[in-house]
């Protein structure tokens, strides 16, 4: 059985290539049909803010890539509710992402074989 991998994405979408490079690991895993999960934590939850405008910074649209995750076979999507409320995150894109409290995140990490937090 394939080993499962949880990616914990902690970078805001506009702080450099960090958020995109975290997502690239997820997409590559999805392309190989591997069991892969993605959790947005700390500033990473800001990737989920609705109505972002990548063109204002002449960047590629990360949210569009996030929306495509379920199509790439990545359906295990989560975000930390504490991080979201601490950052006043209101309307969110990516409806598929499930809110998790701290204890649920501990259980989530336990459930995966390996984890990368970046």
């Amino acid at each position, binding site marked *: 059985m394939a080993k499962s991998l949880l990616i914990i994405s902690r970078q805001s979408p506009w702080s450099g290539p960090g958020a995109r490079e975290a997502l690239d690991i997820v997409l*590559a895993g999805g392309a190989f049909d591997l069991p892969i999960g993605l959790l947005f934590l700390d500033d990473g939850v800001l990737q989920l803010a609705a109505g972002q405008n990548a063109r204002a910074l002449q960047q590629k649209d990360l949210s569009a890539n996030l929306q495509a995750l379920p199509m790439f076979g990545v359906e295990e999507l989560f975000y930390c509710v504490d991080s979201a409320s601490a950052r006043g995150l209101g309307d969110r894109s990516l409806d598929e992402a499930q809110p998790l409290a701290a204890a649920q995140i501990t259980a989530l990490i336990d459930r995966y074989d390996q984890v990368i937090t970046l």
Partner: protein
Amino acid sequence: MAAVLLIESAMKFAIAVFSAAHAPSSRRALLFAQAALAGGHEIVRLFFYQDGVYNASDAVVTPQDETDLPKQWRTFITEQNLDGVVCIAAALRRGVLNTEEAGRYQRDAVAVSAPWELSGLGQLHDAVQDADRLICFGGA
């Protein structure tokens, strides 16, 4: 008997490095890798991602009285005959090219050569599947 025990407890490690050669975490990655082999364990692959690609750069010049980490990696990988894979997308973005990629994108600067190999993120996933443990080094 001791040898048997050693074999039974041997683990397979995948080691991923996310920080530049001058970051303390990259030195830590090398020392961990050396300790893993010294402990009788196996390293299935060293994977260099994000700023970790700079560890593979021949273009790094370290002052003589400082630790030359790219050189130490090269020696370690060569002597131990390890698989040192640099993420190609991360390397292109940071100007760490091998001859093939420099040719493809018409660049003069070639910074990576054997024993390093440029390849895709699939090699990271592949290593995770092969290994008992994935250990990441990066940040500070």
